[in-house]
């Protein structure tokens, strides 16, 4: 039985699409029949199983300046060819190109309901932005790795098109998409830990199941010059909320924060507050909310002119199992609000 030949549409930027270099990055979307440039290698890999029926091309700046609209425009061009799958790139290290590939693949999946695959290098911002939505094959950082990139992309695309289950990221060469599954090993955790230790002791190679996180470096703000005239604010991730948790801040994996006024108050009263946090025993902070948001201490210092003014709104969220991305987002939002209120410094109490 002969299976249907796959119809593939390929996306390339202005450079790989043969329009020119940076000077052509402004070019709008267009589509031509058949494969171009790297598309020929894709055709080679597909052999008789598939056909690159068209190549969509667009300038990186054109996409970069209007990502969503450009992706939609390009998808409209693509749909005319009635493809089974779309392959974009590979973009290697090129950031705008990678973002464009990711955005277009995502739009293809959403609009045309067909699989889409792209490929790029780990540091490409497109990975950070789109790895959860799109299968992004891992490539090297330059065109020298084109062959391998194309091979992986085609293989993954064909698996998807056939509805076959996709293997683990390491097996199929793509960036993990953030889907976490508990699988069953052949041995219990204790056995695997002892075995791993023995390998390490003997100097044998081993494959860790967990790796260390890397952390962003934040540029420190300059020190406050005149503390006696500055406004200081209080923030916490210990889950302090007004009684009843009016904003419904989650007790773990928070996606919200709240700003709560305490005008003319010298000390936070236990009766007015709740502590909503599943990561620690909240008995002591409930007894005395000042143990999280130290209004009483700061009021004393304010009276003695140790600071100019205590900002009369505190910010709070819940810091347990909270996603890094969400924490950064909330941090930026809180900082923006504080800054607009003329606050110079904030004390964050963390549990």
């Amino acid at each position: 039985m002969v299976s249907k030949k796959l119809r593939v549409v390929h996306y390339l930027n202005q450079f790989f699409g043969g329009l020119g270099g940076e000077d052509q990055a402004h070019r709008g979307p267009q589509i031509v029949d058949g494969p171009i440039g790297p598309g020929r290698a894709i055709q080679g890999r597909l052999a008789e199983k598939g056909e690159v029926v068209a190549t969509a091309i667009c300038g990186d700046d054109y996409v970069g300046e209007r990502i969503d609209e450009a992706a939609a425009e390009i998808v409209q061009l693509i749909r005319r060819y009635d493809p089974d799958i779309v392959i974009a790139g590979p973009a290697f290290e090129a950031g705008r190109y990678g973002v464009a590939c990711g955005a277009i693949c995502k739009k293809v999946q959403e609009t045309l309901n067909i699989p889409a695959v792209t490929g790029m290098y780990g540091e490409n911002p497109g990975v950070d932005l789109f790895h959860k939505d799109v299968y992004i094959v891992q490539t090297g950082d330059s065109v020298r790795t084109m062959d391998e990139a194309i091979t992986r992309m085609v293989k993954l695309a064909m698996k998807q098109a056939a509805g076959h289950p996709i293997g683990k990221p390491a097996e199929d060469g793509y960036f993990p998409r953030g889907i976490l599954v508990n699988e069953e090993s052949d041995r219990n955790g204790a056995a695997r830990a002892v075995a791993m230790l023995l390998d390490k002791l003997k100097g044998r190679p081993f494959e860790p199941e967990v790796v260390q996180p890397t952390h962003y470096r934040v540029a420190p703000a300059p020190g406050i010059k005149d503390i006696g005239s500055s406004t200081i604010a209080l923030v916490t991730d210990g889950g302090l909320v007004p009684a009843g948790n009016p904003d419904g801040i989650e007790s773990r994996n928070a996606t919200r924060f709240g700003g709560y006024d305490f005008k003319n108050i010298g000390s936070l009263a236990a009766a007015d507050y709740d502590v909503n946090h599943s990561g620690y025993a909240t008995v002591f902070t409930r007894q005395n909310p000042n143990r999280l948001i130290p209004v009483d201490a700061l009021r004393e210092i304010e009276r003695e002119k140790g600071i100019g003014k205590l900002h009369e709104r505190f910010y709070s969220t819940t810091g347990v199992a909270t996603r890094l991305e969400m924490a950064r987002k909330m941090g930026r939002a809180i900082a923006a609000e504080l800054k607009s209120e003329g606050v110079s410094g904030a004390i964050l109490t963390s549990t």
Partner: protein
Amino acid sequence: MTSVALMVGAPRVVQGVKIVNPMGNEEMDPGAEQRLRRDIATGALHALQAEVNEPTLFDRHKA
């Protein structure tokens, strides 16, 4: 947990008391606890005024 804060890159970190009671200590009498909270807050204000280049741990008692 100050080491966590330093690890994730917080530039200015002041030592609190404990997870369940960061700016207090239920084992102390209220007056002593109040003074402790004041000390930690003062340490925090001191940290806010300092110039730092990298994640730095500050003592709570410095004025």
